[in-house]
């Protein structure tokens, strides 16, 4: 399969790029799209504005009530879901081929003319506050919030507000805030749309053109990425949540580079060897040999769109095995750092990653996600065909050099959430 041959790229109107990929699936079309205007574009005083704006898109438009929207979709078994990431407003959906026109016209209406009704916002705020309250007992989520707050300053893309702050900001959101945000960011310009399945590019382009013409083009101010990770606030931290039978632990540090850095691939595969999958070192030792955890892994995160990312190792441990589990994890990290990885390990993980890349083409949803994230990063389609070669070309020396350069076992932050013995 070659993306370059199968994906048709076009620009139905200025500011919108479509990527269409016909596949063998019959009657079904999966699509997804995004444009800049995610959480980082919220006013500094209230970081929930972007997410709440997105959440209001299915609560009615100027000409349709929320029930009419739902009815239109549900009556043909289609879906459109909106979400808000730190950088983008995203949507995903699917429909049968025969309903594509109905669904795309509705998508256009929801993005362009949401109703922003006060009573709907109040119901939404009640639900979101409820979910945030629930998340206070989520050991994994609370450990991650604590970990990232320790590494990054406020307003950095990888910083997280506390759950209490998020509840307060939700409470202090008003319809006028959402309307202002929508007016500024919901426009054509850097809008990518990917569709995969039983589809032809002409049809999709015609529909997008008629649904989005006259939307207006925006100039997106860049978010200030001048902020960098600060020295960790604490070396070790415990977040107590009562009556939990398993703890969640994050161990790691900021690495100071982003995905576009020349050392990214070498560091990524080095970390994959440590904890990228079941056959990686951490699962093989801490879980498989020692039985200390159900799950443990290690990865690079928060590295896209120019942001200096972080490396973290995450694992769950029973409270009585926590000390032993952390010690075993640190031993693996230490061995990995001081002794490096072997040539055999590197070659094995290269075939893992390139093989998994092929397996990821199994579904239309997987293909949409791949096309969209590639476009969001500003890369051409040819990158998707080049990716396996980039992985294959990584040298052992570059991997071991990157581990030494970006990891420092003496400067790790550990955050654990749960109940402690």
């Amino acid at each position: 399969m070659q993306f370059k041959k199968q994906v048709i790229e076009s620009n139905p109107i200025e500011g919108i790029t479509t990527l269409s990929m016909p596949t063998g699936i019959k009657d079904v079309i999966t699509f997804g799209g995004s444009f800049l205007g995610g959480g980082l574009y919220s006013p500094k005083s209230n970081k929930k504005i972007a997410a709440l704006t997105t959440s209001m898109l299915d609560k009615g438009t100027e000409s349709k009530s929320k029930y009419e929207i739902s009815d239109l979709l549900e009556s043909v078994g289609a879906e459109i879901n909106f979400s808000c990431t730190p950088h983008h407003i995203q949507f995903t959906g699917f429909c049968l081929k025969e309903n594509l026109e109905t669904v795309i016209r509705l998508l256009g209406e929801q993005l362009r003319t949401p109703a922003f009704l006060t009573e709907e916002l109040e119901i939404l705020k009640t639900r979101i506050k409820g979910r945030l309250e629930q998340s206070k007992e989520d050991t994994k989520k609370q450990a991650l919030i604590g970990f990232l707050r320790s590494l990054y300053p406020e307003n950095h893309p990888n910083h997280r507000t506390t759950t209490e702050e998020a509840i307060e900001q939700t409470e202090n959101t008003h319809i006028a805030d959402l309307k202002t945000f929508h007016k500024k960011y919901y426009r054509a310009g850097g809008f990518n749309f990917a569709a995969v399945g039983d589809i032809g590019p002409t049809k999709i382009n015609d529909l997008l053109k008629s649904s989005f013409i006259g939307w207006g083009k925006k100039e997106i101010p860049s978010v200030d990425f001048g902020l960098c990770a600060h020295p960790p606030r604490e070396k070790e931290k415990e977040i107590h949540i009562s009556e939990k039978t398993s703890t969640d632990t994050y161990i790691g540090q900021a690495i100071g580079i982003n995905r576009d850095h020349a050392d990214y691939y070498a560091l990524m595969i080095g970390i994959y060897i440590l904890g990228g999958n079941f056959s990686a070192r951490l699962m093989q030792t801490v879980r498989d040999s020692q039985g200390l955890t159900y799950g443990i892994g290690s990865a690079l995160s928060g590295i896209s769109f120019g942001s200096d990312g972080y490396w973290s190792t995450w694992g769950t441990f029973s409270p009585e095995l926590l000390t032993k589990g952390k010690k075993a994890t640190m031993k693996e990290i230490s061995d990995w750092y001081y002794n490096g990885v072997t040539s055999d390990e590197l070659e094995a993980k290269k075939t893992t990653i390139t093989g998994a890349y092929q397996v990821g083409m199994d579904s239309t949803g997987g293909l949409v996600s791949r096309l969209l994230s590639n476009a969001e990063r500003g890369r051409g389609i040819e990158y998707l065909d080049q990716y396996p070669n980039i992985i294959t070309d990584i040298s052992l020396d570059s991997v071991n050099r990157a581990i030494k350069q970006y990891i420092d076992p003496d400067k790790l932050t550990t955050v654990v959430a749960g109940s402690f013995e």
Partner: protein
Amino acid sequence: MSIENKKAFKDPVFIKESGGIEEYKFEQNGLTVLTLEDHSAPVVTFMVTYHVGSRNEAIGHTGSTHLLEHLMFKGSRNFNKEKGTAIWNELQNIGAQINATTWNDRTNYFEVVPSKHLERAIEIEADRMRFALLKDEDRKPEMTVVRNEFERGENSPFDVLDKNIWATAYQAHPYHHSTIGWRSDIENIPTHKLQEFYDTYYWPNNATVTIIGDFKKNEALKLIKKYFGEHKRSENDPPEMYTEEPKQEGPRRITVKRAGQTGVVGVGHKTPKGLHKDNYALQLLGKILTDGKTSRFNKNIIDKGLATSVFMYDFPFKDNGMFISYIFLTPDTNHQTVEDLVIDEYKSIINSGVTTEELRRAIAQTKAGVAFSRDGSYAVASALNEAIAIGDWTYYTTFMECIDIVSESKIQEAAEKYLIEDNSTTGWFVPKKVEATQDAV
């Protein structure tokens, strides 16, 4: 296996076709094979479903099906760490997506691999079907792994409430206990019991092999014959699980109190066996109640700000199941208020039925869901796995035809028959408020 035996092992017999899926049987050892070719991506899913799940367990060895599933990754005759051919390494090093899952009625092992590696997946599954090592020194560390899986589940108020509702609703039938089992059984089951379990249920005549995706049928069947043809049929048929749940004679209630932030209400009603025709009406009723913003619970509970979300399930099982609605409350909502709204809605359906428009919408939603259950080889295998588990794989291919003929009156009749008070088990999760604290260590 001798050369004579290999020659003697015959080709599989074609049994039937439905929805493009073909069934074959190796008559000598009883292995069933399902195939569906789809060349849209260079990927193939290979899966073995064993007809054994937590319904085949009894007191003292609950969770053993699942613990055994974990041990099946520790090694087999030809694939093990000592030989440098550990199962995870062999498969993940070629980029395969691999795993196994256990549920009430079945255990399945699967590999999603680049097409050229199909043979390796077949070879590994055939080897561990009869030659798993199951060592005591492997069970001990794996027990604590599974116990941590149990502990992770216990962290969730929903998981805890769901387990309690099933344990209250089902008293005699083994659906009483959850698939992961009770903690003390996970900790104490001896290795020889797991070996017995393996020797009782892991045979070709108690398994169905499924191949979906980019492969050539005749070549794949030859490979299955080559590797699985080594195994004989079990000397005794796997034992039947014959326990039936006695008729419920009154409503049941359960309350779980634990540290937490918000409440949950679960209302369950027993349903018939998975292949019973009333289940199609109940499936559509579930959509009418909870699927989408125009669903009844969304309008009457979510849109009134009483809950953060609603969720219901009515999975078809081999034996009787449960139609359960879960409502996750907003902080100031009273449990009884929401429980009353759920019951009122059930009564409204019993008394007045559903509208033609509601039925039409639920069928359309189901149709789209079915179309998407064919998106990718793994999606097909996964859906087919559940149909195999309840006893008839064509449940998957004929599902939409059966849904299409459900009428408004059938839904009302099903509600009248099953959603009655004496058949109900209601559970509340009541949070005990304790604030989280943070300490630098």
